C-alpha cells in the first residue's frame, strides 16, 4: 500500500478543513494554505517518482477489490498531472498571500483554493467513472464559489454563464455515465475498458462516447463549447483566474485523453477524427478571439482555448508520439499560462487596470518583470528553445508522420498568430509609454514593501524557471511523456494493474 497515492486527496482536504476552522485567524489560514500546498507538491513528486520506478500504482479504497470498490490509479500521466497541480497550487498560494484581499480571505478563499485542488487531484487519480463525476463536482463547486466570491457585478454575470454551462456539462456527464452503466454494467474504468473493447454494439457505445466528448469538451473549453471561459475568466481576482487557467480546462483535457484512450477506441475513424477537426477549429477560433481583445487578461483567457486545441490535437492524431506531445504540451501550457496570468496581475497591481490602452511603461519601470513576461509569452508562441517550441514540434512531427498536414499547418499558423497577440501585449503594456504617469497610489509603492513585491515575483520566477527547464531539459520531460503516452496507448498495463489478472 502506497500512502503517497491517497495523500493528494487527504492533504488538500485537511488543509481546506483547517482553513475553514481557522476562519477567525488570518495568519494561521495563510500559513496552513502555503504549508498544505507545499506538502501536496512534495507528495506529488514522491508519487511521480514511485510510479516511474515501480509502474502504475493502485489503491482500492476500503480495500474493496476493483471493479466493485473505487480505486485510485496513478499512471505516469495522472502522476504528472498531479505534480503540475501541486506546482500550481503552491505558486498561486504564495501569490495569493500578497494579492488576495482581506474580505475574500476571511470568507473562505484559502479553503476554496484547496477544495479546488482536492477536486482536481481526485479527478486525476480516480479510476472510477462515477467517482470522476464526484471529483468534477467538487472542483466545479469550489470554482463556482471562487468565481463568485466577492459578489461584484461582473463576477455575477460571468458566474451565471460559467455555472450554467458547466452544469449542462455535468448533466451530460451524469447521463452518459448512467447510459454506460446500463450497457456495460460497471463503472470501473479498467473494467469498462475490457468490456467495451469489442462491443457487439459499437454504434451505441460511440453515441455515448460523443456525450462524453461534449461533456468533457465543455470543461476543456474546446470549440464550439468554450463560451463560459471568456465570459468569466477575467472577472475574479487574478489569483483565481490564474488557478482556473492552470487547472480547470486541463481536467477536461485529462478526462478526454483518459476516456478516449482507455474506453472509446472502438471507432477511432469517427471519434478521433471528430476530435482532430474540433482541435483545429479550437486553435483557430481561440486565437482569433484573442486577437480581437484589448485587455491583458481577456487575451490570455482566449489563448487558453486556442492552446487547448493543441492538447486535443495529439489525441486526435492518436499515436504514441502525438499523445506524448499532448501531454508535454499540457504541462508546458499550464506553467506558462498561469505565469502569464500572474504577470498580468502584477501589471494590474501597478497600474490598477488590465486595459491595454491604459497600461504602459512596464518595460521602463519594471525591467525584471518585463523579461519574466517575455519567457512565458515567447514560450506560448513556440519560440525555441522554450517549452512551447518542443511541445509544438513534437505534435507537428507526429502529425506529419501520420500525414495530417492540414492540422500541422494550422498548428504552425496559429503559433504565428499567438506570437502576434503576445507582442500586442508587449507593445502596449510594456513598451508603450504610460498614457499618464502612474499616480502615487498606483505606483510600485502600492505593493506595500519591496519584500511584498519580491514575494509577488517569486512564483513568477519559479514558473519562468520551469519554463526554461522544460525547454533546455525538454528531453527529460519528453521521455516521461513518451512513457506516459505508451501507457495510454497500451491500456493492458493499466487494466492489469487495476484488475489484477490479465484479460
Amino acid at each position, binding site marked *: 500500500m502506497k500512502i503517497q497515492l491517497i495523500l493528494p486527496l487527504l492533504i488538500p482536504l485537511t488543509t481546506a478543513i483547517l482553513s475553514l476552522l481557522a476562519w477567525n485567524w488570518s495568519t494561521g489560514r495563510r500559513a496552513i494554505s502555503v504549508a498544505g500546498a507545499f506538502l501536496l507538491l512534495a507528495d506529488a513528486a514522491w508519487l511521480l517518482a514511485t510510479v516511474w520506478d515501480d509502474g502504475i500504482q493502485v489503491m482500492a479504497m*476500503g480495500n474493496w477489490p476493483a471493479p466493485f470498490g473505487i480505486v485510485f490509479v496513478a499512471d505516469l500521466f495522472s502522476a504528472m498531472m498531479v505534480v503540475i497541480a501541486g506546482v500550481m497550487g503552491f505558486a498561486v498560494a504564495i501569490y495569493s498571500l500578497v494579492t488576495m484581499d482581506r474580505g475574500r480571505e476571511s470568507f473562505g478563499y484559502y479553503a476554496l483554493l484547496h477544495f479546488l485542488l482536492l477536486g482536481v487531484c481526485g479527478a486525476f487519480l480516480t479510476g472510477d467513472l462515477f467517482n470522476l463525476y464526484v471529483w468534477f463536482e467538487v472542483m466545479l463547486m469550489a470554482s463556482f464559489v471562487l468565481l463568485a466570491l466577492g459578489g461584484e457585478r461582473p463576477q455575477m454575470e460571468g458566474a451565471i454563464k460559467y455555472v*450554467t454551462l458547466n452544469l*449542462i456539462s455535468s448533466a451530460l456527464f451524469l447521463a452518459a455515465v448512467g*447510459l454506460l452503466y446500463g*450497457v456495460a454494467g460497471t463503472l470501473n474504468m479498467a473494467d469498462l475498458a475490457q468490456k467495451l473493447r469489442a462491443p457487439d454494439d459499437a*454504434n451505441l457505445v460511440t453515441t455515448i462516447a460523443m456525450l462524453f466528448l461534449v461533456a468533457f*469538451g465543455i470543461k476543456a473549453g474546446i470549440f464550439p463549447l468554450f463560451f463560459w471561459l471568456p465570459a468569466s475568466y477575467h472577472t475574479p481576482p487574478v489569483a483565481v483566474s490564474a488557478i482556473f487557467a492552470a487547472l480547470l480546462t486541463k481536467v477536461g483535457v485529462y478526462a478526454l485523453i483518459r476516456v478516449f484512450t482507455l474506453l472509446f477506441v472502438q471507432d477511432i475513424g469517427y471519434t478521433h477524427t471528430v476530435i482532430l477537426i474540433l482541435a483545429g477549429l479550437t486553435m483557430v477560433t481561440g486565437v482569433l478571439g484573442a486577437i480581437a481583445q484589448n485587455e491583458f487578461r481577456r487575451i490570455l483567457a482566449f489563448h487558453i482555448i486556442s492552446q487547448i486545441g493543441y492538447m486535443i490535437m495529439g489525441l486526435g492524431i492518436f499515436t504514441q508520439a502525438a499523445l506524448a506531445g499532448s501531454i508535454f504540451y499540457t504541462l508546458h501550457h499550464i506553467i506558462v499560462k498561469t505565469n502569464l496570468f500572474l504577470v498580468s496581475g502584477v501589471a494590474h497591481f501597478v497600474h490598477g487596470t488590465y486595459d491595454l490602452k491604459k497600461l504602459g511603461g512596464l518595460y521602463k519601470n519594471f525591467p525584471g518583470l518585463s523579461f519574466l513576461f517575455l519567457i512565458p509569452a515567447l514560450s506560448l508562441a513556440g*519560440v525555441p528553445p522554450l517549452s512551447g517550441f518542443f511541445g509544438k514540434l513534437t505534435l507537428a512531427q507526429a502529425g506529419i508522420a501520420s500525414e495530417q498536414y492540414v492540422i500541422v499547418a494550422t498548428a504552425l499558423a496559429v503559433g504565428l498568430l499567438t506570437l502576434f497577440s503576445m*507582442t500586442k501585449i508587449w507593445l502596449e503594456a510594456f513598451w*508603450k509609454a504610460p498614457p499618464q504617469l502612474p499616480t502615487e497610489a498606483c505606483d510600485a509603492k502600492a505593493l506595500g514593501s519591496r519584500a511584498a513585491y519580491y514575494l509577488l515575483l517569486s512564483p513568477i520566477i519559479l514558473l519562468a524557471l520551469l519554463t526554461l527547464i522544460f525547454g533546455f531539459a525538454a528531453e527529460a520531460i519528453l521521455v516521461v511523456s513518451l512513457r506516459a503516452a505508451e501507457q495510454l496507448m497500451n491500456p493492458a498495463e493499466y487494466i492489469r494493474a487495476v484488475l489484477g489478472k490479465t484479460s
Partner: protein
Amino acid sequence: MGLVSAVLSGFVLALIAPWIYRIARGATGWLLAIFPLALFAYFLSYIGAVAAGDVVRVSYPWVPSLGINLSFYLDGLSLLFAFLITGIGALVLIYTGGYLKDHSHLGRFYGFILFFMASMLGVVLADNTMGLFLFWELTSVSSFLLIGFEHEKESSRAAALQALLVTALGGMALLGGFLLLNQAVGSWEISELVRQGDAIRTHSLYIPIVLLVLAGAFTKSAQFPFHFWLPSAMEAPTPVSAYLHSATMVKAGVYLLARMTPALAETALWTGTVTAVGAVTMVFGAAIAFRQSDLKLILAYSTVSALGIMMMLLGVGTAGAVQAMVVFLFGHALYKGALFMLAGAIDHEAGTRDVNRLAGLRSAMPVSAAAGLLAALSMAAVPALFGFYGKELFYESLAEDYLMPVLLFASVLTSMIFVAVAVLAGIKPFIGETTSSAKQPHEAPISLWLGPVTLAATGLVLGLWPSMVDKSALLPAIHAVLWRPVFLELALWHGLNPIFLLSMATLASGSGLFIFRSRLLRLFSWLDALRDCGPRNGYSLALAGLNAAAQAQTRVLQSGYLRYYLLIVVATATVLSGYKLLQDIESLSFGRLFDVTFYEAAPALLILLAAFMATRVRSRLAAIAALGVVGFSVALVFVLFSAPDLAMTQFSIETLTVILFVLVFYHLPRFAILSSAWTRARDTFVALTAGGLITAIMLKASGVELHPKISTYYIENSVPLAHGHNIVNVILVEFRGLDTLGEITVLAIAAVGVYALLKFWPGKTETR
C-alpha cells in the same frame, strides 16, 4: 567543445552585459569588443584547416527523443560568415559606445546585441536544422527587441512588430520545411541532408519543402514581396542597422539557401523561383533606393537590392554565379557596414540624415570623409577596391551564359544605380558647400569612426591584394556551396575584356545618374502614385483584415447571450451523437412499453405534465410548484420501484429545495414573455430534438446489455463483509464511500459559497 562554447558563451555574456555596463560605463563597448575579437582569432585558427578542405563537426545529443542534437559544423561557408559576424560585431560594439553614449538603456542594448551575435553565430554554425531554426528565431527576437529599442516611439514599435511578423511568418514556413525534410529523409542534420540531395529531389514532398524553405529565406533576406520590413527596420539605432540589417542577419536567408543548395537546388522549381525573386528584388530595391533622400533608407533599399543580387546568383547556381555571390557578399558586408556606420556618425554630428541637406562635411569630419570615399568607391565597384571583384564576377557569370541577357541587362541597370547611390550616400555629404545646419559638426569620436575606417580600409587593402582572402576564406565557402572543385583567383587586371568595358561603362553612366538624379526623380515622379499599392500595404491590409475577421468571429461566437451558447452546445451534442445513432435507428426497442400498470404510469405521466406546465405558466410560484411536483413524482417512481432510500432523500430534498426557491425568489416579478413566437418555436424544436435523442439512446441502450452488472457482488457481500443489511447505505458508506466523501465536500463548499454570497458583497461593508 570549442564551437559549442564559441556560440553559447555569447549568450552568457549577453546576460551579464547590463551589469558590466553598470561598472564599466563608457568603456563597456571597448571591453565587450574583446569577446568577438577573441572569437575572430579563434575562427582564424581554423582557416588553414578549412582551406585545406577539412570540416569540423561536433554533436551532442540534446533531445534525442526527437532526434535533435546540438551539433555544429564549420566549413568554408560557416567560417566566412563567422568572420563577418565577429569582425563587424567587434566594430559595432565599439561604435555603439559612441553612438548611444549615456542612453539610459545602453546596458540592455549591449545585452541584446551580444544576444544577437551569439544567435547569428549559431545560425551559421548549426548543423542540425532544428538548431538552425532555434538560432534563426532568436535572431528574429533580438532583431525585434533592437528595432523597438526606442520603444516609446510609436513608429519603432510598429517597425519592430512588422519585422517580427514577417520574419516569423518565414520562420514558421521554414519550420514546416524542416519538418517535411525530416519526414522525407529521416534526419535533422544538414550534413546528412546535403548528402541525400538526390533522394530529396525525387521525394513526393519536394515541392512543399522547397517552397517552405524559400519562404523562410526570402522573408529573412528581405526579398520582394517581403522586403518592406527592412526599410521600416531603420527605426532601429544605427549600430543595429549596420550590423543586423545589412551585414549579417539579413544575409541569413542567403546563407540558408547557399547551405541547402546541395540538398535542394538544380531543379527548375528552385532555379526559376530563386532567380526570378532575386532579380525582381534587385531591380526593385535599387530603383527605390535611388528615390530616397534619407541616408539610412538609401542604404536600406540598396541592401535589399544587394540581397536580391545574391539570391539571383544563387538561383542561377552555376560555378561562376556562386563564386560571384560569395565574393559580392563579402565585399557588400565591408562597404555597407561602413556606410551605415558613417550615416550614423553624420546623423550624430550634423543632426540630419537628409542627403539633400547634407554637404561639405569633409573639412569638419576628414577621417569620416576618407572612410566614406573608400566605402562608396567600393560600392560603386571602382577597381582597386574590393567591391570591384564582386561586380566583375557578377557580370562575368551572367555573361558566360548567353541565355541570360535580361538578367544581365537588369544587373547593369542595378549596378548603375549602385554607383549613383554610393556617391549619394558615401561622398555627397562630404563635398560641396557647407550648408547651415542646426549643429556645428565636429569629427566624430574615435569609437564612431573606427568601424567605418577599418571596414573601408579593409576594402582597400583587400582590393589591392585580393590574394589575401581569395583562396583562404572565399574559395572554401564556394566549395561548401558547390561541392565540386572550382578555381578562384581574384586579380585586379584581367585585360581589356568586354566585362571590364561594361564595368567602366556602368561607372560612367552611374555617375551620370547621380548628376541628373533630381531631374530624373522629377521625370519619374508619377511613380509616387504607386507607393500606396506595394506589399507594405498588403501587410497593413492583412493585419487590418485579420483584426476585422477576429472581431467579427468573436462577436458572432462570443455573443454574450447565454441562450445562444446553450443552443450551440446542445446542438453540438445532438449532432455528434445523433449522427451515430441514426446509423441504426431501426434497432430501438419499444418492447417494454406496455409492461406497465396504471398506478405506475400515473406518476410518470404526472412528471411529464408538470414539466410541461413549468414551461407554460407565467407565475413564478406556479413554475416552482411545477418543479416541486416533478420532484415529488420522481420520488413516487422511486417508491414504486424498490428504492425507499432514494424516495426518502428525494422527498426531503425536494421539500427543502422548494422552500429555498420560495425564500430566494419571493420578491421577483412575474415572467414576461420576452421572446418572439419564432424564437419559441425554434427553441421548442431544439429542445424536443435533444430530448428525443436522449429517449432514443435510452431505448436503444435498454435493448442492449453487453455484460452482467457488477451488483451481485454488493448483494452477496453486504452482510458478511460490510456488516450492513441496507445495501444502498452500505454502498454509500463502504463500497463507494469515497463518492460520499466527495459529496459531502460539495455540500460543505456550497455552504461556504452561500454564506459568502449572502454576507459578503460590495453593498455590504461588514466582513465576517
